């Protein structure tokens, strides 16, 4: 067996379906403004975990690229990022407060399975005061919005540099 085998190439990258921000610049500007105010005052580390988790649930490649890189650059551990995909089984990587936020993130992201259960809401309300909870809900709604832009326009992952949009 040769030690100089050619590496097997990856599948080709497809271009985005639509460069939506160029075609809807006023919407893009308004989204940037919304992003800046939603989640203001939330722990930035928690906010990044919430963004990664919602992006996993919604399968947003571009958003996972961005937020895992931002989280790593901000000092988040690789383990905590990877285990987000199975947070229910890896509770010992997160605080109770983070777990309540992740559970709320899942519920608000998957509304089609039936509302946001009382027990999920109440656990979150135990760990977050009312103002904080309102901010957390806004942050979850807004990453869900970015996920929809990313997935519907099939914006490819891999080109994000940490802090690029800060």
């Amino acid at each position, binding site marked *: 067996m040769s030690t100089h085998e050619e590496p097997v190439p990856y599948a080709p990258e497809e271009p985005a379906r639509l460069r939506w921000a160029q075609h809807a610049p006023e919407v893009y500007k308004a989204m940037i403004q919304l992003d800046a105010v939603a989640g203001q005052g939330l722990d930035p580390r928690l906010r990044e975990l919430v963004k990664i988790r919602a992006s996993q649930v*919604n*399968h947003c490649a571009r958003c996972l690229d961005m937020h895992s890189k931002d989280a790593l650059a901000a000092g988040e551990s690789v383990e905590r990022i990877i285990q987000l995909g199975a947070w229910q089984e890896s509770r010992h990587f997160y605080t109770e407060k983070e777990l309540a936020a992740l559970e709320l993130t899942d519920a608000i992201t998957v509304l089609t399975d039936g509302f946001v259960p009382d027990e999920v809401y109440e656990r979150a309300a135990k760990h977050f005061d009312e*103002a904080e909870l309102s901010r957390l809900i806004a942050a979850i709604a807004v990453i869900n919005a970015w996920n929809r832009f990313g997935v519907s326009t099939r914006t490819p992952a891999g080109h994000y540099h940490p802090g690029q949009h800060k």
Partner: protein
Amino acid sequence: MNRTQLLDPKVFRAMAAVSAAAKKGLGDPGLAELVMIRASQINHCAFCLDMHLGLAREQGESEDRIHFLSAWEETEDLYSERERAALALTEAVTVLTEGFVPDEVYEAAAKHFDEAGLAHLIALITVINGWNRLMVSRRVPPGGRQP
């Protein structure tokens, strides 16, 4: 337990700005309401349904076209091909958890909307999904809209 009705006014205004820009860019207020009603049905948002059913009626939308939205695929002659493409895209972009936005759905929409129209349609679907989440999670009751 009562849920918080708090929503930072800055967030509300920023959301309203995204909505306004999306609607303006789409330039079809009738279709905009159909899209927002359909997404609110899928996400079970009582507050949003109340608001957009009211707006659709005020704009003169027919009761038939409102009633049959949840079964638009089974209807004949009630919605145009362009509206049907937009409704199919609405459903796909609203339910991302069941697997992306299929090529055939995207392509059907791209046949009826130019790139700017499509970008604003996607934005509108996205922003109503945002409102749905803000209202369902806080369990905001219907009836908050002033006609």
